């Protein structure tokens, strides 16, 4: 049962931010595909909810200042229909394609997927590997936080109760860069991720550059395997190095046992998938 709550439905972002600034810290509701399920299961019981469904001018995708930006109301489905995303966020498109099922993709928002703070959020590893930043807006201020610093613990984020995600943006990608994502789950549609891996890297003069390895569902937060990245950066990637970096990534993660898989299996698949995706990226760029 969903429980009782007051529902506010503002039309503008200003009105929404005004409502969120109230002392009782109402819960913002975007697509609702996580939150309503959680509320129905009794996990969250907000007394007041601010629906973002009718906000004007928040659902957009833009290219500006060398960056690709998506508005806070942009849905997962929107990502699949935009050429700029396809060109500058292949891994994000890959994640959007295997994100839940069609009905959820049509209503879930990119910002909501980030804001909810789930370690299994499928859009977060590719966005993190793309060096995305999150712009948070409150009634009185606006700030941009690197996505890699956004999560502070299991479903804990730096977002303050009066802030909304206004946009998420990342630097445009160029030639010689590859972005890959793989979602490992117990089935192919509508499944919660067991292990998610995103890899972004460039190959310059036969050497890896800007290596980003982001891991989903294998730690309390989506995380970067920074030591593994460092092993590859500036090096000419051969099979032995890739294998060593993949093993390192498996070392760095911190998975748990749950009904979907054991920690041991998750670690194994981080090893396998990092090796596979880095290998594919390098092969693709050579």
């Amino acid at each position, binding site marked *: *049962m969903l429980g009782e709550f007051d529902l506010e439905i503002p039309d503008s972002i200003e009105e929404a931010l005004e409502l969120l600034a109230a002392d009782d810290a109402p819960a913002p509701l975007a697509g609702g595909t996580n939150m309503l*399920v959680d509320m129905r*299961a009794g996990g969250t019981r907000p007394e007041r909810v601010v629906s973002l469904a009718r906000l004007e001018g928040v659902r957009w995708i833009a290219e500006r200042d060398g960056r690709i930006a998506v508005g806070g109301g942009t849905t997962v489905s929107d990502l699949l229909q935009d050429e700029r995303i396809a060109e500058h966020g292949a891994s994000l498109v890959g994640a959007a394609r295997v994100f839940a*099922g069609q009905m959820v993709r049509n209503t879930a928002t990119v910002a909501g997927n980030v804001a909810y703070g789930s370690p299994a959020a499928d859009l977060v590893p590719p966005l993190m590997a793309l060096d995305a930043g999150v712009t948070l807006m409150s009634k009185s201020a606006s700030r941009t936080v690197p996505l890699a610093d956004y999560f502070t613990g299991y479903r804990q984020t730096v977002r303050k109760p009066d802030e909304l995600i206004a946009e998420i943006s990342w630097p445009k990608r160029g030639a010689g860069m590859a972005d890959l994502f793989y979602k*490992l789950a*117990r*089935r*192919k*549609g*509508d*499944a*919660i991720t*067991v292990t998610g891996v995103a890899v972004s890297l460039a190959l310059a003069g036969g050497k890896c550059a800007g290596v980003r390895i982001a891991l989903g569902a294998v730690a309390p937060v989506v995380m970067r395997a920074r030591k593994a990245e460092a092993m590859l950066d500036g090096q000419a990637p051969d099979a032995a190095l890739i294998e060593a970096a993949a093993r390192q990534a498996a070392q760095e993660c911190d998975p748990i046992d749950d*009904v*979907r*898989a*054991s920690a041991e*299996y998750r670690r*194994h*698949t981080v090893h*396998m*998938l990092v090796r*596979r995706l880095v290998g594919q990226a390098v092969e693709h760029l050579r």
Partner: protein
Amino acid sequence: MTQQSPANVEFRQVGKALTRTDAPGKTTGRTPYAGDYAMPGMLHAKVLRAPAASARLKRIDASKARALEGVACVLTGPDLPDRLAPTDIPGQTGQKRMDTGQPILVRDRVRYFGEPLALIAAETRDIAEKAMELIDYELEPVPGVYDPEAALRPGAPIVQGKDNVVASQKMRKGDIGKGFAAADLIVESTYTSQFIEHAFLEPEVGLAWVDENEVINIRVATQVIEHFRGIADAIGVPHNKVRIRGAMVGGGFGGKEDVTVETYLAVLAKHTMRPVRLEFTREDSFLGHGKRHPFRMTYKTGVKKDGTITALEVRMLADAGAYVFLSPYVLLYAAVAAPGPYRVDNLFVDGKAVATNNMFTSAFRGFGGAQACIAYEQQMDEVAAALGMDRIEFRRRNYLKTGEMLATGVPIQSAVWTEECVDRAMAALGAPSEAPHPAARIGRGVAAYQQSYGRITWLHDTSECWVGVEVDGTVVVRSGVTDIGAGQISALGQIAAELLGVGLDDVVIYNSDSAVTPLAGTTTATRALYMTGNACRMAAATLRERLVERAAASFGVAPGDVDMAGNRAFVIGRPDTSMPFVDLVKLCAADGVHRSELAIFRAPFTDPIDPETGQGQVHPDYTYGAHAVEVAVDIETGEVTVLKSIGAHDVGQAINPAAVEGQIEGGAAQGQGYALSEEMLYEEGRLVTPSFSEYLMPTSMDMPLVQSIILESRSGLGPFGAKGIGEPSLTPVAPAIANAVADAIGTRVFELPITPERVVNAIGEKQGVQT
């Protein structure tokens, strides 16, 4: 794709993929399901469930809940008569096993997680939910037992009664000692299967009211309208004071075979004298009906170098959960199915169903036969590999053939086309697929099966159907049969239309009312078409005789010279000598010819089998067939992708081939979930997969295009030689997938579901052994 053979019989209505009578209503949304009904002044009910698997109810106090405004009634165990609700096999015989009952509400002891503590009826669902939270109770934990092997150990907590053995089943044939002595090779393995959920689209729902004759009417989604007797017994009213009115059912699969919401509705309606509606949420549904029995099956097969099976020893252990329900029968089916569609002269089967404080287990499509197939078909592949013999060739040397004896010592009634089905399914796999990526390995698997249709023959099963012709030439069929989505009633329409020479559009069918439609028995056990189809055929054939006789009199020919088709009666070979069907019916009406007929079909009636040997007749007949699959296994992550899925079944005669394909496709999907992803997981009896985000059925993204190959031996005991396909289409799917995965990775996962993790572990163990 459909392949039919032989193609030597001409039908006009039967055997055609006609648009089903239930299709327009369902596609336009006009068909009301049980949950769509409402009445003025209706109350809304909820069930309070125990959040513990093994506990003593020390105290329950509903006074606060009762005092809440808008609450009409709160019932707890002590408020109900001290009676048990029967959980035994439903039916017309009135037979009832001892000690199988369950209190309607917990009186003192909670035996499984979610066992009902209280019933609430209120003006709105919200009020009922609030009232639930106001019921004060205290549960004292009692040591429970959660594993069937542990439940058998001395000193284990006893769930109920004197010990935890709910049922035992033996099969004895020949001499396995001699059989194993004659073997060149002996293979032994243990296979396990898991709890699974029916996961029908429509959760349990119903609406009850007491009418002016003090009859408790219950509109409900059920496979079995004849539970009215057990419900009446449980609440202490005469059988004719409970009436079940069914509705189109949004999926059953055995999960609506037992009583679900009916008894709760009946007591609440009787108590309040107001209409009461109860709809299970998905969470209620997961906790509210029995699951499929997990089985642990140890198979030991003796075989000669030439591939002849010399002995088979099988030990089965099933988790019955906290109440008996249909466990003894599921175990019986598993034991009878144990040798599969193979000739085994020396057979030993020992099975036990054991009580635990897990969720109770009961009917699920395949009913023990499916679990047995998981074991025997994996064992066949293992034995073939040990012999170094081709898997199909090894099976070929051991198939039961038409005219041979079953392992229970009785002759098979119909054609056995196992070999044809296996060969066709394997051939349809075609050229092997390319591995989709470097870490992928392609594998193929097949499973054959023998699965009963029709109920246990000592239940003395019967089914009734009424067929009548209106004066305008339209046809009415009445039968209590419940349609659970497989086209049960539309098939009756095709049968009546065939015999009366009219179109399916000319037939209207009334069904599923325990008071006003002739009782047809359950829609379970793959029996609806076999039983009610035969009753319909008999009624329509009798009517046809009368009509033909009247037409023959008009035409001045012998009745044997008259046929009816295309809404006309005519002289065979002289199409000019004819009359419209409607004119013939009017002639009959004018003469007072009886224009309707009620027929009863009786399945074979036998005595129970010998309990020491299992010898004797158990079922009317069996369906034979096979399922073949091709999979790609990612050997690094363990993910399994089903690339091809092909069912080939001898259905005897397809009444509606599109409906048969529907069953084969549905069986392929449900079987794939059984093999790869579905599992109800319990920790100390507590369900830890309480929603569809943990309980994973295949989605459209997981399913390949399923190919259906329909073979028609026209040898079955159903109408026009039909066999049954509802359960059989599921049975071979999971073992076929298990065999394909084993083929791909060169080792076997012995536990279902075959999760990516188990695949990785099996590969790891194999590599560990090799290095």
